[in-house]
């Protein structure tokens, strides 16, 4: 099991990268009123056949030739179910894959969100050819980082440039703090 939900997000997004996605949408939606956190990871990658989809949640199904299968999805699903949450995955060959987990915020067995800023920053700066649309919502507040917007402003300066990379980290950290008021999640 992974110690933070943000590590599950990093792990699942790496599946999307390996599936040749060019756009990965990551949403972290927190509602204290409804006492839940919803995490969505959607991609426009290769997708999976129905047959593969039936096996993908099983940790012991592994065909060493397909790198899409392993412990990533079973871990994330187990995290959700361990705190009476829900988990769903849908996929279509040639269209992409979407994964959604909803967990009760106040459940004692819910893993903390952890360092989501590092997860998103790592994904963006290590995969400069892939676009990420990240949205973080806390009750009525939210912020978004769409690398397509950033790219349009920056071109041709790459995300890996020191100043840009620092800006992205600060953008994520400061806007998150303003959105959730530094709540412990």
């Amino acid at each position, binding site marked *: 099991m992974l110690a933070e939900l943000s590590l599950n997000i990093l792990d699942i997004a790496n599946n999307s990268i390996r599936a040749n996605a060019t756009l990965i949408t990551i949403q972290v939606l927190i509602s204290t009123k409804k006492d839940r956190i919803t995490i969505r990871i959607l991609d426009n990658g290769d997708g999976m056949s129905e047959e593969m989809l039936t096996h993908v949640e099983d940790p012991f199904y592994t065909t060493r030739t397909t790198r899409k299968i392993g412990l990533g999805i079973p871990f994330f699903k187990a995290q959700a179910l361990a705190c009476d949450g829900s988990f769903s995955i849908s996929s279509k060959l040639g269209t992409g894959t979407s994964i959604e987990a909803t967990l009760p915020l106040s459940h004692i067995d819910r893993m903390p969100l952890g360092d989501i800023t590092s997860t998103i920053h790592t994904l963006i700066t290590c995969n400069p050819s892939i676009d990420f649309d990240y949205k973080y919502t806390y009750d009525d507040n939210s912020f978004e980082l769409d690398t397509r917007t950033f790219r349009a402003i920056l071109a041709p*300066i790459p995300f890996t440039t020191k100043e840009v990379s620092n800006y992205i980290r600060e953008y994520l950290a400061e806007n998150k703090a303003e959105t959730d008021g530094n709540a412990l999640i």
Partner: protein
Amino acid sequence: MKSLDELRAIREKMQKQVGLRSEGDAGIRVVVGMATCGIASGARPVLTALSDAVQEKGLTNVTVTQTGCIGLCQYEPIVEVMEPGKDKVTYVKMTPEKALHIVDQHLIRGQVVSEYTISGIMG
């Protein structure tokens, strides 16, 4: 909220410098294993430490990137250093502290830190 005007300002500033840099210089590639096994054993802070240090020290000939599982899960976090014309060096059981040591010794001075390599660990 942090504004995008700040990003526009960075672009203006950087664009003036862009011509000075020699892009596409075939340099050192540093790769961090980022599959479930790597992430579970702490690869994310290792990668952050590496890319921050490489940027901080202005090592423009070094690119830090991530890869999937390379099949040595019990030795994660794994960092591979690839340099044209040299054998690949595989560092195992990395921590952010060890990673910074590798930046100073290997990436800057060109000296392999043999006690952190896979052959160093296995004797």
